[in-house]
Structure formats: C-alpha cells, structure tokens
C-alpha cells in the first residue's frame, strides 16, 4: 500500500480497527512461522517448542467438537466476567471509586435471594414455588437498594474527593463488613440457587456436530441472553434518559455536574443500586452453575483483568474484555494448562491482560493519552 492510499484510508478506519487489523496481521505471521517451523522439521514432535507452539493447535484441528465446547464454555464464562466488570465500570465512571466490593455484592445479593427464600419457605411455612421465589427476588432487589443508599450515606459522602487508593481501601472495608454480615445472617454454609423456582431453564441439549458431541446447558444460553438484554437496556438507559445524561455528566466532571444542578448523591445511589442489580443477576447465574457461598469471591477477582484490558471506564471494553478473558482462559487451561501442571486459570487471565497492555497501554477502547504540562 502506498503512502498516499494509506493516508487516504486513515479516516475510514478508526484507530481501534487499525490496531485490530495490525494485531491480526501479526497473529497470521506468527501462525505462518509456526507452520513453516513444523514442516521444515526444525521442531520435531515431542520437543518443547512443538508442545507449546504446535501440538495444541493440532489438537484443536483434530477434535473440532472439543474446540467448539471449549469456546462455548469460554464464551459463557466471559459473559459472566463481563457482567461483574460492568458493575465495576458503572461505579467507577460515576463516582471514581474502584469498588472492590463488587464481587462480594454478587455473593451477598445471591445469598440474600436464596436466604430469604429459605426463611420464607422453611420458617414461615409459605409454599415453595415461583411466587415465593419472585417475592425473594424483590426482597433481594430492595436489599440492594438499601445497601446502595447506606453506602452513599455512610461511605461515599464523608469520603468525597479523597484519593482513589483511600476509596479503594474503604470498599475493601465494605467487603469485610459484607462478608461478616452475610455469614452472620445467612450462615456460612453453601446454598443451592433456586434456579427452577425463578423460572430459569435447566437441563442441557446435545448437538451432534463436527463428528462429535457438544453439550450446551440451557441455563448458559439463558445467561447469555439475559446478559445481552441487560447490557442493551443499560446502554439505552444511559444514552436516552435524563438520569442517564446526568450520569454521563457526572462521569466527565463532578464539579461541572454539580454546577448545573445535578445531585451527586442521588446519582450515586442510582449507580450503586444499578450495580447492585447487575450483581444480583450475576449472582443468580454464577450461583446456578455452582453453589452460593463466599467462595465465589475468587471469581469476582477474575473480573479484574477484564478491567485492565477493557479500561475502568468503558462499557464496551468490559464486554469485549470479558469475552477475550473468558475464552482465552478456557482455551489456555484446556490446551496449554497440562504443560504447566494445571491450575493456571488463577493467573492466566492477568498474563493475557498484561500482554495486551504491553501493546496498547491505554486499554482496548481507551483514547491515546497525550500528557500535558
């Protein structure tokens, strides 16, 4: 491509697209290099280079059904990571707080849901079923509202304008408090999510494709659909409603927003409540796949690399980042994990995120930062 056409093309291709194309080009070059290396015999079977660079891809090619299964599982995990990251992003945009407690809010909201359902059916003698489940859901939503209100009153308002690290520590304090409080009220035992009672589909379907079988849990499909609807809803809410506009104003500048009469306190309650609802949805989905207990906290930490990848303030970043991390992690664990003795899921996500950052320090969707002095 000559210099003239490339500069003429530049306005057509956004910088992000250019970067993606460049990345794809590099990937293609690497793939070609590997193929050449294997074919030329420079990497014999069984050598470390072959094991790391070639064997996993040969496996993928030979067993496409396993590949599809892995990709699907990665996708579902990615959607859920994206949801947790979304909660972080909402709060960080509106109040500049890196809410470490988001992960605990996921567990806490799910626990409230299951706990209040248990209390109503077992101690109060209400008949188990959808009605009580919906009632429990409403209680959980109300609890998240009260939590948002209390957080704004007790934590955010006195700490307004403090250093970001102090806000982070305050949310760590909130995390400890919620763990203690949740276990005190609902007990520390793992609970089973009331999936069927909430009307969510259970069971699975098997597809016979590519010469093998692929299992798809109905719940995972529901999770992906619900997450998509919720993200679309939030996007609409922030783009087209009065409160959404106010929220974007607050995200840009607290002071300017205050000066045009936007109530910061009100916005914060709304945002924390929204993040709480997102947490509740995430909690239901995760809880349905495993038990509801504070062990889920670890999963919430997995959403953090999604944030460095996608940026703390970008909603699309959270979604794309979530998918990249989810799929990358499952692929890495499945195909490369055995080389390391397994269990690399705990840190692989961070390595993927850091690898991206080396090439794009501003994150996936961030603007290139021009420092001024």
């Amino acid at each position, binding site marked *: 491509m000559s210099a003239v056409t490339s500069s003429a093309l530049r306005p057509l291709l956004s910088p992000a697209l250019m970067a993606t194309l460049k990345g794809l080009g590099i990937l293609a070059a690497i793939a070609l290099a590997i193929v050449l290396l294997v074919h030329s015999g420079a990497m014999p079977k069984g050598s470390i280079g072959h094991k790391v660079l070639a064997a996993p891809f040969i496996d993928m090619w030979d067993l496409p059904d396993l590949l599809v299964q892995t990709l699907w599982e990665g996708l579902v995990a990615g959607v859920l990571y994206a949801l947790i990251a979304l909660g972080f992003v909402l709060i960080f945009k509106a109040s500049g707080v*890196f809410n470490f407690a988001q992960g605990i809010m996921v567990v806490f909201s799910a626990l409230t849901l299951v706990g209040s359902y248990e209390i109503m059916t077992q101690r109060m003698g209400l008949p188990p079923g959808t009605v009580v489940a919906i009632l429990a859901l409403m209680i959980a939503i109300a609890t998240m509202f009260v939590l948002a209100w209390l957080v704004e009153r*007790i*934590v955010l308002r*006195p*700490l307004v304008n*403090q*250093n*970001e*690290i*102090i806000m*982070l*520590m*305050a949310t*760590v*304090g*909130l*995390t*400890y*408090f*919620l*763990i*203690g*409080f949740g*276990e*005190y009220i609902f007990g*520390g035992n793992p609970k089973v999510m009331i999936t069927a009672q909430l009307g969510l589909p259970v069971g699975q379907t098997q597809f016979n494709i590519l010469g093998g079988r692929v299992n798809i849990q109905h719940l995972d499909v529901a999770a992906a659909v619900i997450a998509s609807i919720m993200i679309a809803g939030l996007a609409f809410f922030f783009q087209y409603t009065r409160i959404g506009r106010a929220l974007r104003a607050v995200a840009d500048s607290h002071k300017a927003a205050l000066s045009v009469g936007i109530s910061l306190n009100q916005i914060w309650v709304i945002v924390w409540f929204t993040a709480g609802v997102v947490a509740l949805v995430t909690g239901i989905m995760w809880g349905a796949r495993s038990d509801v207990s504070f062990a889920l906290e670890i999963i919430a*930490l997995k959403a*953090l*690399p999604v*944030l*460095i990848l996608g940026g*703390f303030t970008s909603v699309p970043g959270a979604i794309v980042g979530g998918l990249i991390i989810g799929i990358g992690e499952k692929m890495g664990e499945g195909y490369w994990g055995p080389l*390391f*003795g*397994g*269990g*690399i899921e*705990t*840190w692989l996500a*961070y*390595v993927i*995120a*850091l690898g991206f*950052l*080396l090439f794009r*320090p501003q994150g996936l969707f961030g603007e290139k930062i021009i*420092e001024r*002095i």
Partner: protein
Amino acid sequence: MFYRETGQFKTNYTDDMAIFPIRQDRIGIAIILAIALILPFVVSEFVLKTILLPFLALSVAVIGLNILTGYTGLISLGSAGFMGVGAYACYKLTTIFPEVNIIIWIFASGFFAAAVGVFFGLPSLRIKGLYLAVATLAAQFFLQWAFVRIPWLFNYNPSGAIEVPLRTLFGMPITGPTAELEVKYLICLGFVIGMTWLASNLVHGRIGRSWMAVRDMDIAAELMGIKLLNAKLLAFAVSSFFCGVSGALFVFLYLGGAEAGTEFAIRLSFLILFAVIIGGTGSMIGSFFGTAFIVALPTILKFGAPAIGIAITGATAEKIVLMIIGALTIYLLIVEPHGLARLWQIMKQKLRVWPFPY
C-alpha cells in the same frame, strides 16, 4: 512543657539532617527501644506469640510496601506473594546449605524476593495507579500458584507444607519447635531495628527524594534527570526485599511452618496495604502504628470481648470480628484519611505549644 526544642541550636548540616533532630525525640526512641528489649520477659507467652511476634515480622513487610506505595506512589497488591518468595527462598537455602547460619539466609532471601519483585514491577513503566494495582495481582496469583504447584519448593513434602528445621546461633536454638519464644522475639527485633534503620536512611537521601519526586509528579521528576524506570524498579526491588525478609521471619520465627496457599494469600496482601494506609503513607512510624492495628485488633476483639463479659462463641466471633474490622476501616478512613501518623504529628504539635492552643 517538656517537649520543646527551644535552645537546641544546630550548628552544622549534619545535625540539621539528623533523622531525629529534636533531643526529646531521641530520648523517646531510646526509651522505646529499652522497653522493647525488656518486653518479652514481662508479658505473657500468649501476648508474645499472638501479638508481638507477628507484629515484628509483619512490620518489615509494611515498611517495604510503604516504600513502594507511600514513598513512590505505586500501589501493589502482591506483597503477600513476595513474602512467600522470601519464605520459600529461605527454606530452600537453609535445607541446601544447612551449615550457613539461618540469620544470613533470612537476610539473603530478601534478594530473591527483590529479583522477583523487579520482574513483576516492569509493567509499572507503562501503567499507573489503580491499573498497576490490579496488574500486581498477577504477581500474587502466579506466585501463589507456583508455591503450590512446584514441589521442589517445599522439598516434595507430601503435605505440600514447609516445616521449619531446627537452626542454632552460638549453640542456642533460634528456629524450629524447640526454640524459646523470647529468643525468637529478640532475633525478630534485631531484624526490625536494622531494616527500619536502613529504610529510614534510604528515604532521607537522594534515592528517597527521587522516589517521592516520582510519586508527586513523575513528568517533572523526569525533567530533573531522574530515570523513571530505574527509580520505579529500585522501589520495587527494595520493597520486595523487605517483604521477602518479612516472609522469612514470618514463617521461620513466628509460624514455624506454612502452606503457601493459605498463609500468603491475597487477604494478607490487602492486610499489609491496609496497614500502610491506616498507619499513614510515607511515614516510617506510621508503618508501625498500622501493623500494630492489623495485628492487635483481631486478637483483642476475639479474646478481649469474652474477657469483659460479652459472651460470643468462636464461629460468631469470627463473623463479628470481620464486620467490626470492616466498619472500623471505613470509620478510620473517614476520620483521618492521612492515617495514624498524622494524628501522631498533630499530637506532637499540640504538645510542643502546650499549654497554649497554638
């Protein structure tokens, strides 16, 4: 009345640049050191074991993180991982070369932690602030994984744990199950005093100034001729060195054995960061306040509440302790975001002008 600097004239720059320029402060430090020396022989074994030993071991890590976070402005959530590196390095060193004294190995293990710290500090050149904090979690999780998955590190012990062997100094056991608590305490104290002295020297000189310059305004620091990469990596190295020594002390003199998955988990990283913030960023004395707070508070809540007649069972106590720690964290941050060290300063200032209000 008694805390006045009137009449103390400094006639040369050495006096003016002393770390404790006021005579009363020097006397105060001497008294504190004297008390610290007598303490193990007067307090009960319980206090020695559950409060004083972990306090000393952890305070080194807190000073280390304070160098990174408080002085250089880089937030790290991987301190527990670096402590683990120190502990495992010390374990490997003393089992491979048992003839070398353990005290040398505890110190040397810091170098291994420093090397690992520099490696994980590399992203700090490109990413800043909370992004860096999240990135350092990579170190935490990777190291934790390595401690569990690499059996060579714990000498293929089937339980996956390390057990501290018996080591002596002048024929007296200082590590292992037979060592006296008082001896362990004094060894720890020696390390704490030495390391604090080194850290304090460092932050008061050229290197400390360049760290603070990077913290306050990195662009201007670069225009002063400070190389950001060098300054940041040195901060990571020194900080991790301290964490490593602290980890070795923590396992060899306090715990007596450890399983990495549980001891050097992310919660400890947060606890150390918390001690730095509560104590006061960029303050040596604050590091001690902060450590005292995180070590003493859970113990006091757990064992102190029943003592004054509030009957709570063990399991409930755990939960309530968590709630109180959480609530107290938030409360302290609201009351004094600059930490206990700032309260200490205000108190000294009040004392200086007492009995007048200002």
